[in-house]
């Protein structure tokens, strides 16, 4: 009886209600704006609604898995991810000049997506193993564990995803205690680097300048960001049109389904990467800031769960996953409003697409699992103590 009671309790305890509330709010707004973006109901709207149901099931399922069990599984997930990435190298399917997918017959898999979750899991497991006694060489080991999938994904080539995977690992290192003495100079160098690119953009973006490290198309991305008008029909088109959309929204927005930019087809990719532009046009600064605030609450809740987690594993994983959600939102919105280059990063819970939603569901499920395990343990401790 008691085990049955425990089992039922687990099912409900598995849900972190504040997280769930924000999730329901965000996804409802997401569906609402998808409805507007497609101009009424169509298959994409129906698809997305269905994906949400799947995502909820997956999330719950993941949340029910005991974190201890997940921790043990982590290195295996990482290893599997590596094997699949190497598999992509040899048997991958190529499209757009990039080889990213693996056709397993029943499903088309993008192993780099798996790595976004598997890498922080594996690193969290590693630090848990080290049990607080962390030496400098641990960071070397972890760096290697990050660089191997990074290089494999860069080779596909998919620099955007590779950077996200690297960041997810980096966040685990950060939370595990990578010295600020190391972090601050790197961050400074980054700021100075970006600053000088902006200052010297005229020289750098001249056609005869050859960027040694980067591909021509990457140079194009950066230079288009600095000056969208240089390619008004190509890459700049997105940025120009989305900033117009966002700006024309004004303070209160043009009203639901009334954004001319969105409704007249001026926003490209308006159901996927640029869906925030549709939202900001129709709901204005008021809506956009509220939405960002909701996302901030979601991230804050994630960080809170992390601080309350009992084990190092849950702590590091929850911290890293929360920050990855932050990076997604920041990069996506930054790209739409023209302060970051156009890279294919979806807005969590908003952009159309099953894969992104699934990755998100797993991440949120893990967060809930970590949160649930923590509270169960507290209860048990409370009884015995």
């Amino acid at each position, binding site marked *: 009886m008691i085990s049955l009671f425990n089992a039922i309790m687990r099912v409900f305890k598995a849900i972190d209600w504040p997280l769930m509330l924000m999730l329901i709010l965000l996804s409802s707004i997401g569906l609402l704006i998808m409805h507007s973006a497609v101009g009424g109901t169509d298959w994409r709207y129906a698809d997305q609604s269905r994906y949400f149901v799947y995502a909820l099931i997956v999330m719950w399922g993941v949340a029910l898995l005991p974190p201890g069990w997940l921790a043990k599984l982590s290195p295996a997930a990482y290893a599997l991810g590596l094997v699949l990435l190497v598999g992509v190298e040899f048997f991958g399917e190529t499209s757009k000049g990039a080889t990213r997918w693996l056709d397993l017959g029943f499903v088309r898999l993008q192993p780099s997506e798996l790595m976004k979750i598997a890498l922080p899991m594996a690193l969290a497991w590693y630090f848990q193993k080290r049990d607080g006694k962390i030496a400098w060489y641990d960071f070397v080991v972890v760096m290697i564990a990050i660089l191997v999938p990074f290089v494999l994904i860069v080779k596909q080539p998919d620099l955007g995803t590779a950077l996200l995977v690297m960041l997810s690992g980096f966040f685990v290192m950060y939370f595990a205690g990578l010295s600020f003495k190391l972090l601050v100079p790197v961050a400074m160098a980054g700021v100075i680097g970006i600053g000088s690119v902006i200052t010297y953009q005229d020289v750098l973006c001249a056609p005869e300048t050859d960027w040694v490290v980067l591909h021509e198309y990457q140079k194009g991305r950066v230079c288009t960001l600095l000056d969208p008008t240089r390619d008004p029909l190509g890459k700049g088109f997105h940025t120009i049109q989305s900033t117009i959309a966002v700006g024309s929204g004004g303070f209160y927005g043009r009203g639901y389904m009334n954004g001319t930019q969105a409704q007249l087809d001026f926003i490209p990719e308006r159901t996927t990467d640029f869906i925030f532009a549709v939202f900001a046009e129709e709901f*204005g600064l008021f809506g956009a800031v509220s939405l960002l605030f909701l996302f901030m609450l979601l991230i804050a809740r994630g960080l809170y769960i992390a601080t309350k987690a009992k084990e190092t594993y849950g702590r590091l994983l929850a911290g890293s996953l929360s920050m990855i959600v932050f990076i997604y939102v920041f990069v996506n919105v930054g790209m739409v409003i023209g302060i970051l280059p156009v890279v294919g990063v979806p807005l969590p819970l908003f952009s159309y697409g099953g894969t992104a939603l699934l990755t998100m569901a797993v991440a949120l499920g893990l967060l809930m699992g970590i949160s649930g395990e923590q509270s169960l343990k507290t209860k048990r401790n409370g009884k015995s103590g």
Partner: protein
Amino acid sequence: MFDFKSAAQREKGRFLLRAWVAAAIVLVAFSLLGMRLWVLQVEEHEGLLQRADRNRTAVVPIAPRRGEIVDRNGEVLARNYLSYTLDVVPAEVDSIDRLLQELSKVVTLSPSSIRLFKRRVADSGRYNEVMLRNDLTDLEGAFFAAQAFRFPGVKLKARWVRQYPQGAVAAHVVGYVGRISEADLQVLDGQGELGNYRGTDIIGKQGVERAWEQTLHGTTGIESVEVTARGEPMRTLHRIDPEPGSDLVLSLDMRLQRIAEATFVGKRGALVAIDPQNGQILAYVSQPSFDPNLFVGGIDHESWRELNESEDVPLLNRPLLGTYPIGSTYKPFVALAALELGKRDAKTRIYDPGYFEMGNQRFRNAGSAAYGHVDMHKSLVVSSDTYYYSLAPEIGIDALHGFMKPFGFGQQTGIDLKGERTGVLPSTDWKRRAFRKPEQQRWFGGETVSAVIGQGYNAFTIMQLAQATSVLANGGRYYRPHLVMAAKDRHGNTRRIESLEPEHVIDIKPEHIKVVHDALIDVTKKGTARRAFAGAAYTAAGKTGTAQLFNLKGTKYRRDDVDERLRDHALFMGFAPAENPTIALAVLVENGGWGSETAAPIARTVMDAWLLQTEPDAVVTAP
């Protein structure tokens, strides 16, 4: 409670600090976004709202007109004509079904065009124009124009449509255009060309249309148009004209091409004729062919099935993609190899009893004929297999491979079309790589014996045979074979694209070349091709070949006993005039039997047409 100020506790404390720092970073970053949103949505709101209203000042791409394709004499192979189309903006139509019903009283709407239209509507945005009907007749156009007010959301437009006036003639050279697919878009994206294709909806899919896509396409123009809130254009604010694609001048001679194709009526096969002085391709035949016009607006289901499932594979670009053993047409090259590598003197005679024995294997002559004492000259004239069998152990497969490679055998010739097959020029190294099991990786001497008569593992394209023939004809200079000679831009400036310098020159002694040339001349005078070249007004040089498809296990080959599709392929390679060749060619007739009977007469007709400007009786003309 226990006092656990342990490592774990300290770690928790450290984590808390880091979580706070992370939260601070999140806050700063989101504030940054908020500030930018403030700038856009409050400070720049007025200006951007105006831009949105003018957006409405739509940036409309103007697709450039695609370049035309003409032959060396200016005869048109691909051009554009203005076609009147009816476009529909679904968002401006209340009921599509009612519209179609009403509209069909004014213009003809076939069920298939309605089906296609509905599919396109489902695929594109509501505010995009979707084509409903193309190629309106003048009368239909007038009918519609008179009643246009009844059909809001339906627009009469003029569009450039690709047309191939030659129909099926040279279709495999010209190729065709088709609607840009998802895969094409991804390729364009990878090339950074997506912006330039805004407004364009067709792209080269095959042949010259595909290989020379970038030259033919041109540069998209930009027009800023003021549109109403319903998306109707009001006036042009700013315009950058599109740059039309360049016209391409091909080296092909359509007169020769038509004659060459006519010789294949009722046959399947390939022919490539090259000018050995510069690598220009004069005729390029792949038979049977197809009408590229079918593909322009999207091919209908029935035609596609018919083409795709036909046993004759009309869509296969045979000279480029078909690989064949080339039989005895390989012998002139093997003879030259023997001379150059110092393995055999031209005068040396060997005895040919009709077969060659090696180990306990017996290799027979084709037709089991015995030619008695044979020197190199005679070996080519009568096509003695035994003479070449005997060369096999002397030369060896690797030396043969090394000699043949610079001629282009088993290599991509570098022709300016895409997807050229490499074929197989066997060597011990190749066999090691081609097979998995160690026992299969070993090269056997008997396999060299098959290789020297162009059988065995040899698999070459007719393009390669024609190219090698061209190199042999001019004494060893390898000009890259090519179809496009020049590009003409819209100002009428002609830019020469072809390079007339040899890519490499094979060092061959002229006296060795002469031995082979003399023998090949005698092939057409008194050898296997004498009947085909009887009474020629010039000196032709060539070699017939028969490529065995079906091993009849030693029984004597009688072609009527064998199913037509299992019969041997007939081949011919040659050039003329022998003293100073201006045409070199390779011919393959699939399942044509003996080369002397089917392939050589084709070569004769084509050479006559080129050198003597003769006009044979039955020539297919453009539809």
